[in-house]
């Protein structure tokens, strides 16, 4: 098995070739404005290492912050038609009601609210107003809206109204990109709907970006399927990633954590990923990042869906340092470090300059930072250490010391001894942990639906078989599949022993030999 993992970061695009479980090559290339340029460059540099040779590559896995950045920077967003099924409830708080006006102006293409939705116990809240949905879909078409987000009251419990409405919208508006909020899960209508609206706003960008990635792979002479890394440590095939781009949010941090786990052999640990501008801190549980269970703001929008629990702080290799009073970050020279840092002939004192003066790393010209005495360095590094310690502690869910894996290009800012940490682990290729995490990501298949007239055991077995089928269809190797989550909730009100079953299976990416592409 040979896989290429690529992480497109804000500053660098990292790439690794993993061959039979080992890192065969690792490179860094500057991220380009047009995304594909950086990927072409990464492929070219990988080829230059000769490790790639002429051999076959089974998969290319790309992690990208592109979709998250689009929301934060308000760029490349599509106009969205919001369809909510829940009248007469919720009317005074329509979709987009808690968005900042600037983002709402860009994204809100229209709001339609019709009767529908369910109760917490599975009863319909109101029957679905099918004619109302037809009418809404026709109006969306008349307004030229091609991207639609559908939400319904308690759809995570019973998604049937959203599904039916989606079918009607597709019938009236062929080719429309439709997001159902039930696909993003989680109770909390406004926050789940917001995640759906953001997803729908990314429809065009997801289409174009993934097409560009595929073109870059082909243009580099590779014949391998494209996978996009998701924020739970798995990958999605291009088609799936195009449909649910929000699941790539924060996948870079997830990849770093998974890469850290893989390179260190530890499944339960804290991971600190120090980049150029920020440090991400997260916790690995059984090899995967712990999920956040609370509202996460993305570009100012309150959302609630599957996201890793992360703390990001403004500490990185490029962080501005001022001495009186002592302040590190959040401003950073970022990718301009090799020209703006003092040790590199620039004028901005950075965290990297301090590390060079303290002898932690050999970079640039040490004589340029010779006037930074030992006490000053200790003061700055001590402040960085306290920032890391406080946030590692905040990320814990229980008292007790934990092992900590330090990765990322700025990992030298993490000292060997930290309060609340049993040991600090550094790994080879730790500066490319994110690309390693992308390369080793697995494929999942998930089922979440209501079964009737089956025993509990039969319903779970049926769901597991369906999930396995989906994982294989998504590119997983059947022999490697394992069930990672099973959950069942009886739905008391519905007749016929109704039970809602959620099963998730995970497996390795299948070798592409014999794959029908």
């Amino acid at each position, binding site marked *: 098995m040979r896989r290429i993992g690529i992480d497109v970061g804000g500053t660098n695009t990292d790439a690794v070739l993993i061959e039979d479980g080992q890192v065969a090559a690792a490179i860094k290339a500057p991220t380009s404005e047009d995304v594909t340029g950086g990927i072409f460059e990464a492929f070219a540099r990988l080829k230059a290492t000769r490790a790639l040779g002429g051999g076959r590559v089974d998969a290319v896995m790309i992690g990208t912050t592109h979709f998250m950045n689009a929301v934060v920077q308000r760029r490349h967003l599509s106009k969205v038609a919001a369809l909510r099924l*829940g009248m*007469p*409830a*919720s*009317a*005074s*708080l329509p979709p987009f*009601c*808690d968005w900042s006006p600037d983002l709402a102006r860009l994204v809100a293409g229209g709001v339609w609210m019709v009767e529908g*939705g369910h*109760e*917490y*116990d599975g*009863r319909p*809240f*109101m029957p679905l107003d099918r004619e109302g949905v037809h009418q809404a879909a026709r109006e969306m078409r008349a307004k030229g809206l091609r991207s639609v987000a559908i939400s319904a*009251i*308690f759809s995570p419990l019973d998604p049937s109204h959203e599904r039916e409405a989606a079918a009607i919208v597709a019938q009236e508006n062929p080719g429309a990109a439709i997001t159902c909020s039930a696909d993003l899960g989680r*109770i*909390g*209508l*406004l926050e789940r709907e917001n995640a759906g609206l953001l997803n729908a706003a990314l429809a065009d960008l997801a289409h174009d970006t993934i097409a560009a990635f595929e073109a870059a792979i082909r243009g580099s002479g590779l014949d391998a399927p494209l996978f996009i890394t998701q924020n739970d440590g798995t990958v999605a095939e291009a088609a799936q990633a195009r449909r649910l781009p929000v699941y790539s949010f924060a996948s870079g941090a997830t990849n770093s954590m998974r890469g850290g786990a893989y390179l260190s052999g530890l499944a339960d640990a804290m991971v600190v990923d120090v980049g150029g501008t920020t440090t991400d801190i997260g916790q690995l549980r059984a090899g995967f990042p712990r999920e956040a269970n*609370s509202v996460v703001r993305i570009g100012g929008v309150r959302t609630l869906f599957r996201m890793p629990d992360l703390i990001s702080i403004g500490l990185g290799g490029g962080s501005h340092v001022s001495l009186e009073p002592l302040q590190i970050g959040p401003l950073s020279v970022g990718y301009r470090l090799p020209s703006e840092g003092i040790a590199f002939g620039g004028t901005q004192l950075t965290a990297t300059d301090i590390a060079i003066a303290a002898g932690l790393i050999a970079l640039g010209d040490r004589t340029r930072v010779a006037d930074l005495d030992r006490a000053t360095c200790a003061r700055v590094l001590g402040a960085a250490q306290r920032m890391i310690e406080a946030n590692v*502690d*905040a*990320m*814990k*869910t*229980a*008292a007790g010391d934990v092992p900590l894996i330090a990765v990322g290009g700025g990992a030298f800012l993490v000292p060997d001894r930290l309060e609340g940490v049993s040991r600090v682990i550094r790994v080879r290729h730790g500066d490319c942990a994110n690309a390693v995490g992308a390369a080793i990501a697995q494929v999942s298949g998930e089922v979440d639906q209501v079964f009737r007239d089956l025993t509990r055991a039969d319903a779970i077995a049926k769901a597991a078989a369906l999930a396995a089928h989906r994982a294989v269809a998504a590119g997983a190797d059947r022999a490697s599949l394992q069930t990672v989550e099973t959950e069942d909730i009886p739905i008391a009100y519905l007749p016929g022993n109704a039970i809602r079953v959620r099963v998730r299976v995970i497996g390795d990416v299948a070798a592409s030999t014999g794959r029908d592409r």
Partner: protein
Amino acid sequence: MTLCEITLEDIESLAVGAWILGTGGGGSPYLGLLNMRRLYAEGHRVWLMPAAELADDDWVAAVSNMGAPLVGQERLTDSRTIARAVALMEEHTGYRFRGVMALEIGGGNSIQPLMAAAHLERPVIDADMMGRAYPEAQMTSVAVGDLRPCPLTTVDVRGLEAVVDKVPSWKWMERVSRKICVEYGSIASTCKAPRTGREVKHWGIHGTTTKAIEIGRAVREAQRTHADPIAAILGVEPGKLLYQGKVRDVERRTTEGFLRGRAQFAGSGDWLGAAMRIEFQNEWIVAWLDGEPIAMSPDLICVLDSVSGEAVGTETIRYGQRVTVIALPPPRVFLTPKGLAHVGPRAFGYDIDFRSVFDA
């Protein structure tokens, strides 16, 4: 007549202050706040009237939302439903309400009277019946005063309406109205038994809307100016600083529809080495410092984020959070033997005599 306009800034402050007066429970005021922002954008305005200015024979509506927070998060809050509960009570009784007041100033129910007032164009009476949040219907000043518990109106957003016309006690009211609420889908907007101006003046807990706004304003101003929000709260309220530290452990269990459990803290600063434990039933009920009970209901125990000054709720408190614990003085009505029987430590199953942190 001194009617004072409540500005949108006041309502933003109210949401922060009411969450603090929620003493760990009461539900988030966020959806109510969103409704008020929209109502103000549409041109609605709300006025505040001191309880002392009510005439003895005025009628006042006391409102609250009842039910499961989970359902509220899916159905959201529609400002018109609570207004309809008040209108239904007027239709049922033939009274015309002088104003609308909160049952519970702590948490999300603090905003309900404002939503009703905006639609009905009546003032909000500056008073409530708890001065904080409490989990049960008999834990109110009017129940302590043995005032009539009925009638009560319940409204569902789909137009379902019911009136509980006669019950002999507050406990019966809780049982019967809870059943209706469950059938509605576990959420209902309710207008409690109408109160006369005389009753509100005697049994209402006065000035609590203003108090919540002032606390919230102090916190928000401190956040804006990077000042200490805890000091800001203690600057506007005669409260007492009890403890500073970090959450060390949280245990939660859901029993009989209540969230029960305890949070344990490790001290910092002046409290380095001192351990605090606070037990909760939806709200913070009793705080122990190194094994000694030092604060208990009806004293208000407020657990606040040490940096932002905002309340930390019993549902969401988690390991590692840096918190400051303060106590605020309880309404006097709860300090009588009858009041303590309703909301003192024994009402929550603790065999402890009530001792206020403010007596020391």
